[in-house]
């Protein structure tokens, strides 16, 4: 039987007395492209950090390709939340991307890592920007630098935290299109509060609000949304081209 990229069993986590995650079970298979939505403080970032090994769950187990995350560093490419990022740090775009190639055991010449980083910058359409300081970039450019940095470690899994928060819709779309292409080569998990956009690109959706609701499908059920957000959310009314809720009039949707 194949070892799943990510497997969580009964994972719980709390900050002091406040539970953030309660018995979360999640299994991802190769090629999955999962979008996790949920309210702020619903535990989305915490869940990612547990999968990355940055946080240890209070109880439950987490395996990344069959190993504890801390023993499998370098397998996951991580794109942190851009808004929480120190963009004033004195570092240029090229060096930022090269961070992904610094893991121990990856002995390579400076020229090789440089060329790999430059190739990745081309791939995210930032070819001429290698020498720019990251503080000079627009939100969308910085977001793509962070994705290139995550890809630089040649990960088998990509985790993204709110990849399109604080970038405009058009740039958001280009980020998602890039992810859609990448999803042919690796397992991707992204968390977002942006239900409408996310649902057009991901293969499956889960809702997270302390508990995880996941049915391995792309459709959100009313029940999932209600449980996750604590109130019914009218998703269709915003005119997204893809209906993510099953139609109440049974057949046919916009």
């Amino acid at each position, binding site marked *: 039987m194949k070892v799943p990229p990510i497997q969580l069993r009964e994972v719980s986590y709390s900050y002091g007395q406040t539970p953030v995650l309660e018995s979360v079970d999640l299994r991802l298979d190769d090629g999955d492209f999962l979008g996790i939505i949920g309210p702020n403080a619903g535990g989305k970032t915490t869940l990612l*950090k547990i999968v*990355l*090994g*940055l946080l240890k769950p209070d109880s439950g187990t987490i395996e990344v390709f069959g190993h504890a995350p801390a023993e499998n*560093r*370098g397998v*996951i490419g*991580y794109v*942190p939340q851009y808004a929480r*990022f*120190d*963009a*004033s*740090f*004195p*570092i*240029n775009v090229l*060096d*930022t991307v*090269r*961070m*992904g*190639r*610094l*893991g*121990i*055991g*990856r002995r390579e010449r400076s020229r090789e890592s440089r060329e790999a980083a430059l190739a990745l910058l081309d791939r995210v359409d930032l070819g001429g920007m290698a020498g720019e*300081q*990251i*503080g*000079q970039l627009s939100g969308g450019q910085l977001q793509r630098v962070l994705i290139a*940095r995550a890809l630089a*470690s040649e990960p088998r899994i990509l985790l993204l935290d709110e990849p399109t928060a604080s970038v405009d819709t058009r740039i958001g779309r280009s980020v998602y299109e890039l992810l859609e292409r990448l999803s042919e080569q690796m397992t991707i998990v992204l968390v977002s509060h942006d239900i409408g956009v996310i649902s057009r690109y991901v293969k499956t959706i889960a809702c997270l609000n302390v508990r995880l609701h996941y049915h391995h499908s792309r459709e959100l059920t009313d029940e999932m949304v209600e449980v996750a957000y604590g109130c019914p959310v009218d998703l269709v009314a915003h005119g997204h081209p893809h209906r993510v809720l099953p139609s109440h009039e049974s057949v046919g949707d916009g």
Partner: protein
Amino acid sequence: MIGALEYEFFQRALAAGLLAAVASGIVGTFVVARRIASISGGLAHAAFGGIGLGYLVGFPPMAGALAFGLLSAMGIGAAELRMRQGLDTLIAMVWAVGMALGIIFASLAPGATPDLLSYLFGNILFVPAAYLWFTAVLDVFLVLVVVRLYHPLQAVAFDEEFSWVAGVPVAALFLLLLGLTAVTIVVLIRVVGVILVIALLTIPPAIARHWTGGLDRMMVMSTAISAVCITAGLFISYGLSASLGLDIPTGPFIILLVASLYVVSAAAHLFVGRRPGV
């Protein structure tokens, strides 16, 4: 004022200042970039406890400073790696306890009361030859470390979480950085003293940050700024004392020069409107 160069003690002070500027420029750049100025202040004041202990027990005070500085660096470093936040109180405690211990040890020391003022505000005019050697070796070591580990150190200073996820040995590099900071601080105590160390460590890189991006260029530029200010401070304070009989301590004078330069730089920077990465 140039006549000062004829004196061996002055030549030695100048050499000491220039050597210290190299260490200060390299380490200070990381201190500013990684935002560990308050930890650095804590380490400097903790080192003072070691100075007092040296007087009490009878070993060289600077060796005590080195031991206290390094131990505090490892302690604070371990705490920072475990908790990642809320270290303010711990740093403040290390800071004040170091001073308290230093004063109490020194007051209990046998013989004449030690000259604590020169440790608090620096005394570069009369440095022993051993100091020059120590600082020169530290400089060489720092340059080697930066050449060899530039990218990993930069990565850890910039984004610890990502570096860890990518497989970079974050804890070892962070403790190395704090250790080097502690040693450099002890060297700088001679130049500007415990109380003024953070200023010499952080202001030149902050000035460099106005005009350049990239840790490498910041290191070179802040070394140059420190060197100029230390040299100018030495000559001017010597000149004032030789010509006017004004006995102005060199350390505080150097700090005022660096701080004035910062004000000028910040104003010019605003005026020019070039804000790399800010």
